[in-house]
């Protein structure tokens, strides 16, 4: 019994640290509606800065004051960095389509990863223990770290201070007003820019504080950003976007469930948070304490009413590209063929996500689930039934489509970031099944020997197969967008009320679109698997989903040429840069930042503009 009480206290300490990070994220989202991937990077920067400050002179020589001063200084510095990021980068792209800012924040993640590596080196670092809170204290005869007791108090204190800020200061009241109705606040003459910079400063400082306060408890590592960001998002979404008490409650719920969950099921560590998120979102579509947002999301750009036939120059360019892809490969070496086949699969993958994000008006953070479902369908058939490639390629879209049908039923009911996060939850659940069901899926060692049939084993033959299937897939997606089905899809996106009035069943249309996109992603996944000869859980992991998201956003969501361009540009850049230098993430991040700032409508749109001018 005593051990259970101590376990609960341990859960409380974790909840507090999680809340600190999540609170900053939820404050930023509430006002700016930016899905800030870089929040984890600010957390990591906070930890590294604090480490440098407290373990080196002059602060290290000042004892207790030096330590706590260092922590606060680090948080402050990170706040200023956050404000700078807002002023230099994000401010310029508020008018871009929803989620486009995500691309910029992801680029920041890449840049910070390499900068931290350059500045602080690769080794994990231990900070000093906190003065006065060094040891443990006895609770029910068990030792409990004093610092954890302190952390337990910090969470509620920060929550209280934030409450005071939001309810008792002019700045806070304006922030709350902006959370509810940005346009109105602007109309009343409040300087929006200052407000936004302020909120970024506050949010980032909270992330930095969260990171710095981990110093006496955990090692400072270059992987901290990725380890925390997904968890922080889960907490924010489970609590309800923009809701501070919600975030606190969610952090508490997840940490306590985790603390007790591992007593019963030690292997649940991988999936627990996502299970909680899926259940909460299915039962409460706006999180525990979130409210349904009023009005359309800000800064959305109305799309052109109907995509006409492609302009003549684009048709010409498309035909020329197709001719080149058909005629040139026999003269290419083996490696360009391998790359081309990879690109084909990624193009179809991105195009399938585009159906959801563009015409569908939804977002998906977990599209890799269907890519991976296709890959695993092929691999499982090959492994357990010895099925040849032809069978695998036929089965993949059906299996992936089925998974999409199932997950989609839950996901398309929700809207915006909630829906996107639910897709992420399902994708992570699927990932953990592939990861942990070792007998069937081979676990993280994957399934080997998924090679094409004899006739397609040559690189050239495989390229033509990829081109044919992906070309067919993209063509089908295009047909679907231009068919009445696609118009209905666009209609429910642009005006749900009017669409419903003319008899469009928005739910059904979205659901079907989701399943269709999933099936196409499945084809891409199966092709990718046969191209590599093996399948691993990484094919349905978060980085793969993020890849798809980045490709679509980079290319532009407005037309189908967007994801095609985006996929080739992103995969090509990554391939070239990673051969060029160890610092390819830094370069890739900078290139993406440049593209974001110069082409805030995506690459495809930039091409259109140039032609149109």
């Amino acid at each position, binding site marked *: 019994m005593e051990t259970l009480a101590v376990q609960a206290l341990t859960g409380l300490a974790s909840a507090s640290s999680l809340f600190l990070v999540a609170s900053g994220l939820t404050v930023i989202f509430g006002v700016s509606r930016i899905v800030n991937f870089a929040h984890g990077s600010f957390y990591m920067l906070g930890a590294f800065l604090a480490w440098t400050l407290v373990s080196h002179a002059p602060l290290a020589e000042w004892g207790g004051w030096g330590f706590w001063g260092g922590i606060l200084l680090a948080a402050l510095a990170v706040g200023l960095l956050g404000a700078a990021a807002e002023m230099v980068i994000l401010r310029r792209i508020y008018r871009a389509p929803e989620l486009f800012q995500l691309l910029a924040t992801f680029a920041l993640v890449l840049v910070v990863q390499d900068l931290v590596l350059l500045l602080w080196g690769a080794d994990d670092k231990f900070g000093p223990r906190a003065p006065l809170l060094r040891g443990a204290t006895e609770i029910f005869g068990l030792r409990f770290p004093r610092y954890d007791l302190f952390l337990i108090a910090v969470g509620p204190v920060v929550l209280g201070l934030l409450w005071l800020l939001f309810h008792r200061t002019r700045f806070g009241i304006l922030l709350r007003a902006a959370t509810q109705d940005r346009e109105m606040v602007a109309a009343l003459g409040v300087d929006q820019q200052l407000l936004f910079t302020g909120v970024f400063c506050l949010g980032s400082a909270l992330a930095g504080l969260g990171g710095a306060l981990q110093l006496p408890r955990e*090692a400072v590592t*270059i992987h901290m950003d990725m380890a925390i960001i997904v968890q922080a998002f889960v907490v924010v979404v489970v609590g309800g976007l923009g809701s501070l008490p919600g975030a606190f409650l969610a952090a508490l719920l997840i940490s306590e469930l985790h603390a007790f969950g591992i007593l019963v099921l030690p292997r649940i560590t991988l999936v627990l948070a996502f299970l909680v998120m899926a259940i909460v979102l299915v039962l409460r579509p706006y999180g525990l304490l979130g409210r349904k947002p009023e009005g359309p999301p800000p800064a959305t750009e109305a799309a052109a009413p109907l995509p006409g036939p492609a302009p003549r120059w684009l048709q010409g360019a498309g035909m020329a590209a197709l001719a080149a892809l058909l005629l040139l490969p026999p003269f290419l070496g083996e490696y360009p063929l391998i790359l081309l086949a990879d690109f084909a699969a990624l193009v179809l993958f991105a195009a399938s996500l585009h159906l959801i994000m563009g015409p569908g008006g939804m977002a998906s953070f977990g599209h890799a689930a269907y890519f991976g479902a296709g890959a695993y369908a092929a691999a499982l058939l090959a492994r357990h039934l010895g099925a040849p490639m032809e069978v695998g390629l036929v089965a993949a879209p059906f299996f992936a489509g089925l998974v999409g049908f199932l997950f989609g039923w839950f996901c398309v009911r929700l809207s915006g970031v909630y829906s996107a996060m639910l897709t992420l939850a399902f994708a992570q659940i699927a990932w953990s099944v592939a990861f942990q069901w070792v007998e069937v899926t081979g676990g993280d060692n994957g399934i080997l020997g998924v090679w094409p049939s004899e006739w397609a084993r040559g690189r050239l033959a495989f390229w033509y197969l990829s081109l044919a299937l992906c070309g067919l897939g993209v063509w089908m997606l295009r047909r679907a967008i231009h068919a009445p089905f696609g118009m209905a899809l666009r209609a429910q996106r642009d005006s749900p009320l009017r669409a419903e009035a003319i008899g469009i069943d928005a739910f059904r249309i979205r659901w079907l679109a989701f399943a269709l996109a999933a099936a196409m992603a499945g084809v891409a996944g199966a092709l990718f698997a046969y191209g590599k*000869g093996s399948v*691993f859980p*990484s094919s349905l992991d978060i980085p793969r989903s993020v890849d798809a998201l980045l490709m679509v956003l980079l290319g532009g969501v407005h037309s189908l040429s967007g994801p095609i361009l985006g996929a080739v540009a992103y995969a090509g850049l990554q391939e*070239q840069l990673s051969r*060029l230098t*160890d610092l390819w993430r830094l370069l890739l991040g900078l290139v993406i930042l440049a593209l974001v700032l110069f082409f805030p409508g995506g690459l495809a749109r930039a091409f259109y503009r140039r032609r149109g001018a």
Partner: protein
Amino acid sequence: MEFRNSFPRLGRRGLLTGVAMGVAAPAVLRAQGNAPIRIGEINSYTAQPAFLGPYRNGWLLAQERINAEGGIHGRPLETLFRDDAGRPEDSVRIAGELVASERVALLGGGYLSNVGLALGDYALQNKVLYCASEPLTDALVWSRGNRYTFRLRPSTYMQAAMLVEEAAKLPAKRWATIAPNYEYGQSAVRWFKALLSHARPDVEFVGEQFPALGRIDAGATSQALERLRPDAIFNVTFGTDLLNFVRQGNTRGLFEDRVVASMLTGEPEYLEPLGEECPDGWIVTGYPRDELNNPVHTALRDAYRARFNELPRCGSIVGHDTALAIATMLRQANSTDTEAMVAAFEGLRYPTGYGTGEVEFRALDHQSTLGAFVGRTKLQGRVGRMVDWRYADGARYLPPDEQVREWRPRQN
């Protein structure tokens, strides 16, 4: 000294220009003369820089020495290092690039087990030689072993067997385990349980913890172990997870009056970051770099420090030994024909940088008999060290040959 490192180098044929201009790759047949022998090396450099930086340094040091001695019958070695970013599917693509475009004679590398397995399967399909350096998974040479794949480092099974030997001598009866939640952790726990139960039928395993790799909730996990009241703990966590686990465990008194047997913890990679937190008396496998004074190792350590201005780590020895083993094999094969290289690799003997004598790549399963050091941790001053250590020869910690034959697929 000739320094042939192609590492930061521009891909010779940019894909986009290649596609746009339709430049066909001319199948150049290299003149045998003094042209370098190229090795393609693939590793997770950006995902695991703390371990792979020293590894690459060790490799480069060995390569520089070999080339200074005249290379392989007059031909220098040249290694192309590539980053797979920790993704097995990328490693396969890069393998294709290295073999098809860069015309490497063989592949090496791999840190993560799944990357190693993906490359091993690529080697089998394309009949290319692959010398795995770091991946630990047993599957690489046993259940999914093949004719073209060799592995240097002592595997999960071997490391677990080394610890079991010591663990069986302890009076402890109630054991708890903690391991990262993926194949390496699960296999290590499985072998440890099986081997220890065999050696000591009276021991009992009272519980287990499987924190997510890199995301351990150290407080809750230590508390959960404490609750089991074990006599001893078998630990497989490493890196960040290990640091956090040890700090929480120390604060909560988890390790007091308990023995801990811990995989890899004695390697400087993991021991050094622990600093003053280093617990006393853990039974570990590792590498007692500073106390290992024999002529071969001392010379290597000094040369490494002179060249890179830091001390080698376990990864450095692995990188050094891989390059050395490949060079020894190439000298014997006297050809870069894959079948000839496979024939030379089987039963190959080379002198390890540990200075503990010769190591053999077994013809039976292509596993090298490189061992590890088994000892106890001790905090000396402000850093942890390995004490009371001995070299555990890998050959002694492998299962019987009949068993290996049964596990390993036939025909390949």
